[in-house]
C-alpha cells in the first residue's frame, strides 16, 4: 500500500459531491446480505396474499383464452368497422411497458448512468413479463389460434410462406427478437448473481438449482473481461432493438391509409410513449417494493427522482407529438384528417363542440383522459417536492399507465370507428370477455413478477457492488472496508 500513498487524491468540493448511490456507507458484503436476504428470508404475508390474487387472475386469463378459442372472436366486442379492439390496444400497451426495462439496462448503460444498477434487474424482468402478456394478444386475436404458426417461416408441403411485404410480419420478427434478446440480456446479467446465491446456499436444492443456472461462474477476472465486453455488446445491440420494436409496432398503423393512423411521426412518438409508460410501470412496482423489502438504501429517493425526470422528459415528448398531430391535421388541409382529429377526438360536449358548432365526439372522454394523464400528469414531476414524495409518485405513476392505455385506445379504436364513409361508422364497446381478458394478463404479469422477486435477486448484486466508492481501487476510499459519503 506504500506506493499508493504517493498518489494524493483530493475529494471533490462539497458543492460538487454527488448523492451516493448506496446510502448509509454500506459495505460490499452488506449488499449481498441485504439483496439475497429478500430471497432467503421467510415468505412475507403480503407476498402470499398478492400471489393468490395474481394466480387467480392468471387463471381468468387462460379461461378467457379457452372461451375465445372454443367460441370465436365474436365473444369480443368487435364489429365492423372496428375489427381491432382491446386485443391490439392491450398488445401495444404491454409491449410499450416493456420498453423501460431495455432503456434502463441498455441505453442508460451506454450513457454511463450508474444509478441504473439498482433498478435494471427488476426493470428487465418487468420487460420480459410485459412482453409475454403482450405476445398473447396478437396470437389470440387471429381467432383461429391453431393457424398461429402461419406467422412463422416454417417449411411446409404447401409452400405457404409468410408475406413479408406486410408490417405485421415485421412485427412478428421485432417482438419475438425483442423477447429473446431481453431474456438473453437478463440472464447474462443474472449469471454472477446466481453464483452469489449458489455460494450462500444453505440447502442442497438451492445449491443445485442456483449452481446449475450460474453455469459455474467463479468471478475470475479473465471471465469478467469477456463478460463485460459481451455485456457492452448486448447493450449496444439492445439499443437499436428497443428503438426498432415500437417503431415497427407503429408501422402496423402508419403504413395504412386510415386518418389517425397514417402519420409519419408515429415511430419516434410511439417510442417516447413506450418509454414513458414503461417508467410509469417501473415506478409503480419499485416505489412500494423498496419499502416492503427494506431496500431503501439501494433504491434511494434519488433513483426514484431520476426516474421521475425521465418520465417527465418522455411525457413531454408525447405531449409535443399530440400537438404536432393536431397541427399537421390542420395544416395538411386534408378534410378527413381534420375530421378525425378535431371532430372525432377532441370535440367535447362542453367547450369545443359548442364552439365549433358540431356534435360532440362519441369518445371525447377517452381522448381527454389521455390528454390529462399523458400531458398534464407528468408536468407535476417538475416539482422536487412531488418527485421525492413516494405516495405522490406512486399515484402519478399509475395515472401514467391509465393515460397510455387510453392513448392506444384513441389511436386504434377511435380512428377505426369513424373512417371515410359515414355509412361505415359504428360505436365500439368491449364485452365482459374483453375486460376479463385484459385483467387476466395482469394476473399473468404479477404472478411471474412475484415469483421473480421471491426466487431471483431483484437487484443486480455484482453491479451495485461495482458502483460503490470502495469498489474503485483508485478512489481515496478504494482500500476502505465500508463505503464513504461520496
Amino acid at each position: 500500500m506504500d506506493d499508493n500513498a504517493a498518489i494524493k487524491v483530493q475529494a471533490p468540493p462539497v458543492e460538487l459531491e454527488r448523492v451516493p448511490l448506496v446510502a448509509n456507507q454500506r459495505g460490499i458484503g452488506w449488499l449481498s446480505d441485504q439483496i439475497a436476504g429478500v430471497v432467503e428470508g421467510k415468505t412475507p404475508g403480503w407476498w402470499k396474499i398478492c400471489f393468490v390474487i395474481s394466480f387467480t387472475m392468471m387463471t381468468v386469463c387462460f379461461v378467457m383464452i379457452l372461451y375465445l378459442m372454443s367460441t370465436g372472436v365474436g365473444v369480443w366486442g368487435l364489429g365492423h368497422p372496428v375489427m381491432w379492439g382491446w386485443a391490439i390496444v392491450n398488445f401495444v400497451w404491454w409491449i410499450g411497458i416493456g420498453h423501460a426495462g431495455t432503456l434502463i439496462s441498455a441505453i442508460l448503460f451506454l450513457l454511463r448512468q450508474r444509478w441504473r444498477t439498482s433498478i435494471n434487474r427488476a426493470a428487465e424482468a418487468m420487460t420480459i413479463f410485459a412482453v409475454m402478456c403482450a405476445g398473447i394478444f396478437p396470437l389470440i386475436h387471429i381467432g383461429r389460434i391453431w393457424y398461429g404458426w402461419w406467422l412463422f417461416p416454417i417449411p411446409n408441403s404447401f409452400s405457404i410462406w409468410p408475406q413479408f411485404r406486410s408490417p405485421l410480419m415485421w412485427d412478428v420478427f421485432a417482438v419475438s427478437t425483442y423477447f429473446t434478446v431481453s431474456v438473453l440480456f437478463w440472464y447474462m446479467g443474472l449469471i454472477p448473481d446466481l453464483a452469489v446465491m449458489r455460494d450462500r446456499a444453505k440447502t442442497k436444492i438451492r445449491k443445485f438449482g442456483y449452481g446449475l443456472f450460474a453455469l459455474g461462474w467463479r468471478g475470475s477476472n479473465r471471465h469478467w473481461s469477456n463478460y463485460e465486453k459481451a455485456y457492452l455488446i448486448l447493450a449496444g445491440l439492445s439499443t437499436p432493438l428497443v428503438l426498432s420494436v415500437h417503431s415497427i409496432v407503429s408501422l402496423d398503423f402508419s403504413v395504412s391509409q386510415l386518418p389517425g393512423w397514417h402519420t409519419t411521426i408515429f415511430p419516434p412518438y410511439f417510442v417516447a410513449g413506450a418509454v414513458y409508460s414503461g417508467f410509469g410501470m417501473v415506478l409503480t412496482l419499485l416505489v412500494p417494493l423498496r419499502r416492503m423489502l427494506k431496500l431503501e438504501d439501494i433504491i434511494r429517493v434519488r433513483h426514484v427522482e431520476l426516474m421521475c425526470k425521465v418520465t417527465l422528459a418522455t411525457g413531454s415528448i408525447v405531449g409535443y407529438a399530440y400537438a404536432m398531430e393536431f397541427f399537421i391535421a390542420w395544416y395538411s388541409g386534408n378534410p378527413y384528417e381534420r375530421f378525425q382529429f378535431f371532430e372525432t377526438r377532441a370535440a367535447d360536449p362542453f367547450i369545443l363542440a359548442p364552439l365549433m358548432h358540431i356534435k360532440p365526439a362519441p369518445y371525447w372522454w377517452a381522448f381527454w383522459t389521455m390528454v390529462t394523464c399523458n400531458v398534464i400528469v407528468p408536468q407535476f414531476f417538475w416539482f422536487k417536492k412531488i418527485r421525492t414524495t413516494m405516495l405522490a409518485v406512486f399515484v402519478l405513476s399509475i395515472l401514467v399507465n391509465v393515460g397510455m392505455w387510453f392513448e392506444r385506445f384513441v389511436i386504434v379504436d377511435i380512428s377505426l370507428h369513424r373512417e371515410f364513409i359515414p355509412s361505415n361508422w359504428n360505436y365500439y364497446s368491449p364485452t365482459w370477455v374483453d375486460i376479463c381478458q385484459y385483467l387476466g394478463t395482469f394476473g399473468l404479469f404479477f404472478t411471474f413478477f412475484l415469483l421473480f422477486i421471491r426466487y431471483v435477486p431483484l437487484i443486480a448484486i455484482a453491479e451495485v457492488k461495482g458502483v460503490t466508492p470502495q469498489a474503485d481501487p483508485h478512489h481515496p476510499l478504494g482500500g476502505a472496508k465500508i463505503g464513504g459519503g461520496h
Partner: protein
Amino acid sequence: MPAPYAIMAEFETPAAVLHAAEKVQETGYRHWDVFTPFPVHGMDRAMGIRNSKVGWFSFIGGCTGYTTGMLMIWYMNSHNYPIVIGGKPMFSPFYSFPPSYELTILFGSFGALLGMLFLNRLPRLHHPLLKNRRFALATHDRFFVVIESTDPKYSENETRRLLETIGSKHIEVVEE
C-alpha cells in the same frame, strides 16, 4: 493426499488485490487469475489481459443474421412461391430490411452470449476452486489471487512467499 491445484491468496480490498495482481504479473507468472465479486477497474491492464474477442463472435452472428433474413425472404416471397401483392415488387431490400435487421440483432446477441461462454469455457459446474469453502467469499466481499500449479514458475514455497510479501493475510493450497 490429492495433488495441489493452486495456491490461493485472499485480499480484503480492491486496491490491495490490484497491487497484488501487478506484482504477480511482474514476477512473470502465466497460469494465474484474480477472483473478485465484481469487475475491478484497471485489473485487465494490471494482469496484462488483451481486449476480449467476444466482439468477433457477435459480428459473425450479426452478419449471419442479416444474410439469413435477406435470403430467407427472397426465397419465400420471390423464388419458391411468388405472389403479386398490391403491385409491390417480388423482392425488394426495403421491405425485407426490418426482419433482416431484427435477425441481425438476434444472431448478434446469441453470438455475444455464446461467444462469452465459449471464451470462458463455461458452463463448467465442477471446479477445484468451487470445492474450497473459503473461496465462496469470492462472490461476497473478498478478493483472491490464485496461482495454478501448472505454471512453470510455480513452487509451493516461493509462490507462497511472494503472496505473503504482497500482503495477503490468508494463503492456502487448493487441492485438485
